[in-house]
């Protein structure tokens, strides 16, 4: 299993994880997003993306949802996800 603990991430950045995520979480820090994950399997490069969502939205993408964070104040929450770079090819 591979442990990932990367800080300072922003949307569109790429990170390497195992192909199967055992557990993962993401936290917004001052310097950007911190991704913590335990994964296994062959190393896979993924893109960090986020989507602002509303109640009732449907998410339609080929990726792994990491976490959903409440927005500041009354802002809508944000879903953070990882998408395999192969999807972009």
């Amino acid at each position, binding site marked *: 299993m591979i442990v990932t603990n990367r800080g300072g991430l922003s949307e*569109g950045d790429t990170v390497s994880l195992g192909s199967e995520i055992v557990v993962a979480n993401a936290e917004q820090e001052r310097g950007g997003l911190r991704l913590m994950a335990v994964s296994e399997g062959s190393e896979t490069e993924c893109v960090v993306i986020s*989507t602002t969502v509303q109640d009732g939205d449907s998410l339609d993408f080929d990726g792994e949802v990491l976490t959903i964070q409440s927005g500041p104040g009354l802002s809508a929450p944000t879903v953070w996800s990882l998408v395999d770079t192969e999807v972009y090819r």
Partner: protein
Amino acid sequence: MNISTSAVVEARKRDGEAADERPAYVDEALQQSRKVGYQSGLPLVEPEGDHETPQLGESVNDLYEHYVSGSDLFRPDAGSFLKRLAEQPEIHNVEAASSELGPSTDKAEVRKAAQLHGLDIPDGEGVDESSDEDAIRLPSGESVPLAILEGPTDKLVLAQLFSDGLSEEEIARYLSEETDSNVTVREVREAATEANLLGGGGDSLRGPAPRPSDVHVGSGSYDKEPW
């Protein structure tokens, strides 16, 4: 330039109204054209389906509704849109792409999105402006250097635009667009009246038709043909 006596006399008779018949290039020049910049002119990436080309001064905002910008560019399904943008001849660097995508998209996002989607957008700066800032481009395509004009409502320019069949409202919109300033109908009317380019309807002209010596360009004068 192509200013004839008869065209100026006809323009004076119209008293600021548009000509019923005028060259096709006039109507084309009065429509919005493609420009680099979000909601500035027509979008470089066209929207799907049929749409009317807005006239100068009309809103183009609706034509940008299909644009993808900001962090949405990182979504896998944004690749086709970004590819269409990158293929436009005006998009020769990330700054031009960022400008076209609007204030919610910075250059770093364009770079990152292009890399993700496997697109080549050169990492340069500078946006090509299709318009020459040092000249007024006439509807015919000819450019007149600002240095030889007395301002946006120079009588030589007004004489040409009225001769082409534009109304005073159209001239105000056209010159506002060309000079990136706010040229009002009132300014056009006052300058044209002073230059004897407007004089009332029919044969009741208020003053004599402008003579070649009345139309000066810098230190020279325009004497296309005798009056």
